[in-house]
Structures are given as structure tokens and as C-alpha cells.
């Protein structure tokens, strides 16, 4: 144990002299958080509203479920504001013509062309159009998702209609009724779920926390990969020749990684609170989440690093893992708002649990973070359980 601490102290001294650590651990996340928070001013905070221009040129029976049912429902919940447009051109202009109606930036236009219902009902190709505003990625993606989901359900209904039609042509007229049912099925895009998970975290905090966790996975690799670096530099031979058990070398590296992770998170939390006005929440809860997240980051990265043979490989493997998991975990954009598979898939990344835990903490108490902390510690336990024996076996000159 003593030698593990000696090794960790040496490592931290080395890292303190390494500029790239500061970049990954502090400068990059802080800078990006500032950019995300101020410049793009994204829409994931509590007052999330998307403004859609709707041009219902069709006015047919299959347009109504989308306009009145799906979109109307979202409007009632206050998540979406609808602006009526009389033609496709007007709707498009509303999206593109920024400043024309400056009071209401329109995020996307949803256009239901003439004859849409008729074409669907008679089995001819029909289209729904979405015009996205390039400046509001998230809200316009939402519009696209809503419309795609509606179209998918129509497809399904249409399929059913065709089948039915071949059996009993008289029921063809019921197509509209079936479409009505499609519109009435639970909202295709689970915006409501989003509100429950991330809504409680304000905009700035969400992005800051996401970026902090994203870079946390890079920061800990400076400790994790240093085992490979020591081997590359030949100093591992000296450690192995010294009178200390092998496990204390691995433990030393774990302590180094923990130190790096915790210090960088502490600096980020303090700095973003003061500079960016982020509100991380109850300090004890945040501390518990940070410790658990750091442990999970070390475990996951150690496991990935243990698969590498050289320090170059180690750096590449861990970078890829950090980026993929970070994106999956929703650190760059609130993937939970995309709905569907992606929203659930994010929980394969510890990042998502960390953000979830912070959201739970903001909306409740420390007790509410238990599932997130448990999940993070589970990640840590499983991955380090795999990594430690692998790393011990790698401990030769």
C-alpha cells in the first residue's frame, strides 16, 4: 500500500508537468461548456419548447390525426408551439426567413401536401415534408422524428388496410378511422420521458456535466495508460525489480487515475458554478456521483487499456472508447430526447447514469441518486474485475 502511494505520488507529479492533462481535464471541458452554454444556447432546459410551422394543405382525414392528435397533444403539454401556415411556401419561409417574425423562431416546418390523405387511402405514394431549421438541430430533429414516426404508423395502418381491403372491400372506408387510431396511440416521440430525466437540470449544468463526464474518461486514461507507458519507457522493469508486490503497481495506477479524475472534476464543478452559473445540486450527492463516475471511468478505461499491447495502441483504444461511450451516453446532446432505441441504449455508457443521477438529484434528494450510483459502481466493479487480472498478467518487462 505504501509503495502504491509512492507510485501514485510520482505519477501525479509527472502529470502535473504534462500540459495535455490540463487540456483534457480542464481547459477543453470548460471551454466547450462555455461555448455550448452561451453560443448555441440549446433547448434542453426546463422551458423546452419547439416551434413548428404546420401547413395542412391536405385537410384530409389522415392529416387530422397528425395535426390535431400528435402535434396538438404536444402543444397542449406546452412542449411545442404550433404556427399555422396556409401553404407549403409560407411554412418554408417561416423556417428560412429568420427575423421575419422575430418574436418566434420557427424550428421546423411540417407540410402535409394536398391529396395526401387521398393518395394514402388509394395506395399511391404520398409524402410528408419536414423543413428543418439548421440553427436548431434538436427541435427540428424532433419534428422529423415525430413525422417519421407518424408515417411509419401510417405505413403499418396502410398495410393493414390493404390486407383488409383484399378480404372485404367495403371496409376500405374505415381507413380513416384506423388512421385516427394511429394518431391516438401513445405519442410516438417520448418527449414526456425526457422531461422526467433531464428536464430538471438546467441548460448550462446539463452541458457542463455532460462535457465533464466526457472528458473525465480521457483524464483517467492518463493514469490508466501510464502502465503501458512505463513498460514502453523501460521503467516498469525497475518497478518489477523493486521489492514490492505486483498488485501495488496496479493499485498505484488506480490511485493516480482517481486523483486525476477527482481533481479535474472538482476544478470543473467549482469553475462552472462560478463562471458559468451551473447548478450541480446538493454537494454531497454530487460528490458521491463524481466518485462513482470516476470509479466507473477508471474501470472501463483500464479494461480497454488492458486489451492493448503497446502504449500507442492503449492511447488509441482508450480514445475511441471514450468518444463512443461519451456520445452514446448523451454527453454532447441530450440523446434521451431522441427517443426510441437510442434513448435506452445510452445506459450502456456510464455517462448516461451520471447525468441521470444529477437529474435525479436536482429533481429530488440524495436518495434518488441511489440507482445511478449503484449502476456506476456496478460498471466499476465488473470492468475492473476484468481489467485487474489482465493487467497483472501484463506486468512483465
Amino acid at each position, binding site marked *: 500500500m*505504501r*509503495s502504491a502511494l*509512492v*507510485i501514485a505520488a*510520482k505519477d501525479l*507529479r*509527472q502529470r502535473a*508537468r*504534462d500540459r495535455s492533462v490540463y487540456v483534457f481535464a480542464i481547459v477543453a471541458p470548460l471551454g466547450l461548456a462555455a461555448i455550448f452554454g452561451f453560443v448555441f444556447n440549446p433547448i434542453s432546459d426546463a422551458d423546452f419548447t419547439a416551434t413548428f410551422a404546420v401547413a395542412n394543405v391536405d385537410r384530409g382525414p389522415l392529416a387530422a390525426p397528425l395535426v390535431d392528435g400528435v402535434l396538438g397533444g404536444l402543444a397542449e403539454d406546452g412542449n411545442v408551439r404550433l404556427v399555422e401556415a396556409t401553404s407549403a411556401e409560407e411554412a418554408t419561409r417561416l423556417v428560412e426567413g429568420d427575423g421575419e417574425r422575430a418574436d418566434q423562431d420557427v424550428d421546423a416546418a411540417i407540410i402535409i401536401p394536398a391529396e395526401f390523405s387521398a393518395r394514402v387511402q388509394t395506395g399511391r405514394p404520398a409524402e410528408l415534408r419536414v423543413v428543418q431549421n439548421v440553427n436548431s438541430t434538436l427541435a427540428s430533429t424532433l419534428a422529423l422524428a415525430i413525422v417519421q414516426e407518424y408515417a411509419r404508423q401510417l405505413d403499418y395502418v396502410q398495410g393493414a388496410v390493404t390486407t383488409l381491403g383484399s378480404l372485404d372491400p367495403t371496409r376500405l372506408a374505415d381507413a380513416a378511422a384506423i388512421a385516427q387510431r394511429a394518431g391516438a396511440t401513445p405519442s410516438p416521440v417520448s418527449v414526456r420521458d425526457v422531461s422526467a430525466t433531464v428536464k430538471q437540470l438546467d441548460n448550462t449544468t446539463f452541458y457542463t456535466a455532460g462535457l465533464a463526464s466526457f472528458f473525465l474518461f480521457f483524464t483517467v486514461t492518463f493514469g490508466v495508460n501510464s502502465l503501458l507507458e512505463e513498460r514502453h*519507457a*523501460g*521503467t516498469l*522493469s*525497475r*518497478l*518489477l*525489480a*523493486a*521489492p*514490492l*508486490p*505486483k498488485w501495488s503497481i496496479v493499485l498505484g495506477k488506480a490511485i493516480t487515475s482517481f486523483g486525476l479524475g477527482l481533481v479535474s472534476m472538482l476544478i470543473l464543478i467549482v469553475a462552472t458554478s462560478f463562471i458559468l452559473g451551473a447548478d450541480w445540486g446538493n454537494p454531497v450527492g454530487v460528490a458521491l456521483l463524481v466518485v462513482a463516475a470516476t470509479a466507473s471511468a477508471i474501470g472501463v478505461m483500464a479494461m480497454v487499456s488492458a486489451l492493448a499491447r503497446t502504449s500507442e495502441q492503449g492511447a488509441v483504444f482508450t480514445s475511441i472508447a471514450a468518444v463512443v461511450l461519451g456520445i452514446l451516453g448523451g454527453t454532447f446532446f441530450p440523446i434521451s430526447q431522441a427517443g426510441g432505441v437510442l434513448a435506452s441504449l445510452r445506459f450502456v455508457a456510464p455517462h448516461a447514469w451520471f447525468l441521470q443521477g444529477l437529474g435525479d438529484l436536482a429533481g429530488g434528494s440524495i436518495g434518488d441518486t441511489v440507482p445511478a450510483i449503484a449502476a456506476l459502481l456496478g460498471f466499476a466493479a465488473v470492468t475492473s474485475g476484468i481489467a485487474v487480472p489482465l493487467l497483472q498478467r501484463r506486468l*512483465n*518487462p
Partner: protein
Amino acid sequence: MKFRINRFDRRRIVWRSPFHVAGYHGAASRSGNSDTDQDQPVLECRDLRKSFGELTAVDGVSFRIAAGETYGLLGPNGAGKTTSISMAVGLMQRDGGQVLVDGEPLDPGTTGLKAKIGLVPQDIAIYPDLTARENLRFFGRLYDMPRAKLRGRADEVLEIIGLGDRADDRADTFSGGMKRRLNIGIGLLHAPRLLVLDEPTVGVDPQSRNAILESIEQLGSEGLAVLYTTHYMEEAERLCDRIGIIDRGQIKAEGTRRELAQIVRENDRVRLSATGSLHAGAEAIGRIDGVQQVDVVDGGIDVLVEQAGKSLMALLSALDEASVSITGVEIDEPNLEAVFLHLTGRSLRD
């Protein structure tokens, strides 16, 4: 000095000097003397074996090193020197054999015993982003040296390796020779009983190299057991009390420099720069025991003699009697390069 030839197997002939046999294997025959510490080797390796896949890197290497003795493993690149010493210091798991340090078995998992060994790896193993002093202090703490003692000892070692004035500079600002010296300093720091140096002068300028060799000579004379690997014949000749010639994972022959030289059964060459009646002198010399051949050359006499050291006095007095005045003596003994060539049919520098 006579040699005994032990035939271990058809491929391998091991030469051992009688001194060697008496000194170590004779323990049982010594009459009741229980002072084993005196004779117990600091390091004993028995029949070390290691293969990497198909390749047998070390194939039954055995040697012993006593306190105060400098033992050299001389062999070309790829001979198995690094692999042998990696097993000897407990860095590498071995496929077979035994390592005893002060009579106690050493394995990769052993911890306490490793403190008796100082290792100087072949590849420079220092932290470039730490200063020389920080490098020393870190390893000192790993060897559990008390802080106060460590501080003094670090200064001492910095002086030994000639880095006193650069102690607080980062190692990445050092020249190759300085890094090499720091590499050695780290191995010395905790005052080990056994210092193991793996080709410590590779890639070093002649001046640094000389400084390194001098400090190792000094250490050997201070009672440290030294295991020194090299592929430089001159270094082995200069530093080592005994030398094991290693090739293809086997120790082909072992002994003092002179004992090894005997293997090739080549005579020493003595060149006497002289003036006077050289032919008379040459005739007188020819009658001396052990002299094989005498040639009068321009400005002197060339003598081939079995052992220059033994016959030199007789040579000089014979010349004196023949009224030849001597202005210089140069002795050329068969070198280890020749021995290696004789044993393996190849040159050391292949």
C-alpha cells in the same frame, strides 16, 4: 594454471578453473569450517532456462558471484544475456532453474529479497519529466529508504555519477551519457549487495564510458558483487574478475581472463623495443623456458612466449646479460575475441 574439461554433453564443453572448483564446489570438503557467509555466493543461478515460443533464449545457464567479485556475461547481441539477468533479478518468470540470493530462493513474486539487488536495465529506464534527484528519490522510497537517509544518499550517488551540478534539471535535458549515468545511479542508490548492469555503456561517448567503467571498478573494489553484461570484449577484460562467455543461450566457457585465454592455446606476444646486440639477445632469450619463437625486428625483438607474466623477468635479465638495453616492453595477450571465435566459430560483433 591447468584446466579440466568437463564433458556435459556432446555439444558443450565447459572449462572451469581449479580455483573455481575449489572455491565453490569444495564446500563439502572443507574441514568443518562453518563460516559459510564467506563463501556463500551473493548470487547463484542454476540451470536457468527460458524459451519464447520456438526460440530457446536461455538454455541452462549457471553461474555464481561472490561478494566483491565482478562477473561478466560476454556475448553478442541475442546471446541471451538480458533474458538471463531478467530471470536472475526476478523480473521474468523462468521456465526452469533456480536463483539464490545470499542462499535464499528468488522468484518474480519474492519481494523482500529484491532489495538486495540493484538493477541497471539495458534500455535507459528513467522518468524524463522528473529531475535527476526526483528520479533517485522515487526509487529510494520504493526501496523503503528512510527519508533522511535517502536525502544524503541521493547527494552521494549524484556525486558518484557526476551529476551533482545537474541534480535538479529534468532528465530529458540530459545528454545520452548523462542519462546512462543516472540509469546506473538509480541501481546504486539503495546500496545493494549485488549490482546488475546490462550493457550500461551502449551508445555512450568514450569519455562518459570511461567514467562509467571507472565507477564500476571502484564499486567492485568496495565489496559489491557485480554482474555485468556486455558485448564489448575490452570492457569484460578490464572490469571482470571472471567472465562467462555466452552464446545462443549457453555459457560456453567461464573463468578469469587469463584462464579463458588459455583455451585458445595461443601464446602471448612480447615486443621489446631495444638497442644493442639484438641478435645475441635473441639467442639468449631462445634458451628460456616457455619461449616459443624469437624474431629480431626493426628496433627490437618479438617474442612468442607461453605466459608473458611468468617469463618477463627472465627475458629482461637475459637481455641485460647480453648487453641489450631495453627502451620499451609491450605485451600482447590473446584476447577474448579470439576465445569467442575459437569457441563459437563466429565473431563477437556479428
